[in-house]
């Protein structure tokens, strides 16, 4: 089970107008594992992440060639509704952006737009999601108060809870810890380790220690190409490509 391929990218190419951001990415991401994407900024790792939930296409002038499969379903097939896809592929962004509404309404936002109206079910989802995001104990007494009053670390966990409430199969994280202090970062990493039992997680990070700590697999991107992809312990100890070695030993980037 843990070694089934969940996401498969074949010859994926992404263009912004004339600029090619990704070159023939081929990658197999395993179910219930954490896969880290590392590389210097502008290397295409975020672009790749955003192709998995087709968020790139919201930017004018973006075109995608090749294919990504989740459970062997081709995401870029014309029959696939990106809105439907995004219900199954959650995403956490760099800036923990909470909606200007209560903590409860933030978490209930996803289920509500997907048609859950029953108050009891919503209550249950909210509690379950906040618990799963390790936030419940901190906020259970002020769940109806505005989410904008929370600290940065709490916000990022609230955003996690909001994603979990939609019950996705895959969670994408785009540098989720870059705006957090060390303690909040540690909490977030702990959470990621817990969540991988039930979700397939892909995380973009510029912090190599973080990639080494949380991930099972790591992919190294450079100039829009996937240079190396391997088990994390293998890649960091025994890089096969010279460029990977240079990067992880801090020679550039």
């Amino acid at each position, binding site marked *: 089970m843990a070694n089934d391929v969940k996401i498969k990218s074949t010859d994926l190419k992404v263009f912004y107008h004339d600029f090619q951001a990704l070159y023939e990415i081929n990658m197999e991401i395993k179910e219930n594992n954490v896969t880290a994407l590392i590389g210097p900024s502008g290397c295409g790792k975020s672009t790749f992440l955003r192709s998995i939930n087709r968020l790139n296409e919201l930017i004018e002038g973006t075109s995608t060639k090749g294919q990504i499969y*989740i*459970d062997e*379903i081709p995401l870029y097939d014309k*029959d*696939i*509704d990106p*809105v*439907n*896809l995004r*219900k*199954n592929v959650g995403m956490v962004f760099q800036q923990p952006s909470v909606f200007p509404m209560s903590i409860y309404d933030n978490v209930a936002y996803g*289920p509500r737009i*997907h*048609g*859950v109206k*029953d108050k009891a*079910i919503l209550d249950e*989802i909210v509690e379950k999601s906040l618990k799963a995001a390790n936030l419940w104990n901190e906020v259970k007494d002020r769940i109806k108060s505005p989410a904008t009053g929370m600290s940065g670390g709490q916000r990022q966990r609230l955003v996690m809870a909001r994603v979990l409430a*939609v*019950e996705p*199969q895959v969670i994408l994280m785009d540098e989720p810890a870059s705006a957090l202090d060390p303690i909040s970062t540690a909490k977030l990493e702990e959470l990621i380790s817990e969540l991988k039992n039930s979700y397939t997680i892909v995380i973009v990070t510029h912090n190599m220690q973080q990639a080494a700590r949380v991930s099972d697999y790591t992919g190294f991107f450079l100039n829009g190409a996937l240079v190396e992809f391997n088990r994390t312990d293998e890649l960091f100890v025994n890089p096969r490509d010279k460029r990977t070695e240079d990067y992880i030993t801090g020679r550039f980037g």
Partner: protein
Amino acid sequence: MMEKLNTMVSTSSCSILAETQKRFKLSGEQFIEKILMLCAAISILAILLITLFIFSRGIPVILKTGLGNFLLNLEWAPTSGNFGIGAMFVGSLVVTFTALLWAVPLGLMTSIFMAEIAPPRIDKILGSLLELLAGIPSVVYGFFGLIVIVPFIREYLGGNGLSVLAGAIILGIMILPTIINISRDSIKAVPREYKEGSLALGATHYQTISRVLLPAARSGIITAIILGMGRAIGETMAVVMVTGNAAILPGNILSPVRTMTSNIVLEMGYATGDHQAALFATGTVLFILIVLLNFIANLASKAGRVNESN
């Protein structure tokens, strides 16, 4: 319920479900987009209708009378078929320029004061005063002019008070907020390095204002003046109430005067036939004049932006 949320595309039947959902959803979404676009198109429709309906009524009279004759002929005797708006055309310009004559210097001084000299608190208080001044309806200004300014002129300067001067005073007050706000913003937008550079060379604050800040803010100030002018030419109720409205060329600033806007509002109530059409023709001239002024103001502010980016 929870299971439903979780249906992905893992079986082929689910894929079909996704497809049907997509069709239904997208058509709804596209429908909304079409409706919104239609709403956006209505403002285009509005301006087309306005132009069409006013021009189609006004232009025949102008053509019949001849544009030069219509604009310059001083005789306005609609009942005997003489449609010359020369007196009103000149009247509008005279009142507007007299208003600019005092409002521009005062407004500029105040905008410099607010941008450069006043403590922030006073700048803020003046700002909200001006906001309120801009919000006071023209009919209230007209009323104030009629009750206070007109008798004052009659008492101390002569004539019956209803005059170019009364109109210019009231119009000047009304366009002050426009002039001050836009000039102040453009002075504040001048990069700080300019000012610091000048001060560092030993220039005094006032030398810096007059040699550096004002030239740099020039296009914004010109825009402010043109927009103020447009507002003055288009203003109706306040002018009607204080200028006496005689359809003759004003001899001096104490003479009564009628503007193009007053001409429309005074006679629209009872005019019919060619007379009514002549009022629409007055509106046509006014409309073109204002659009032209706004266009120039637009060019001026764009020219300023280009300069800044160079």
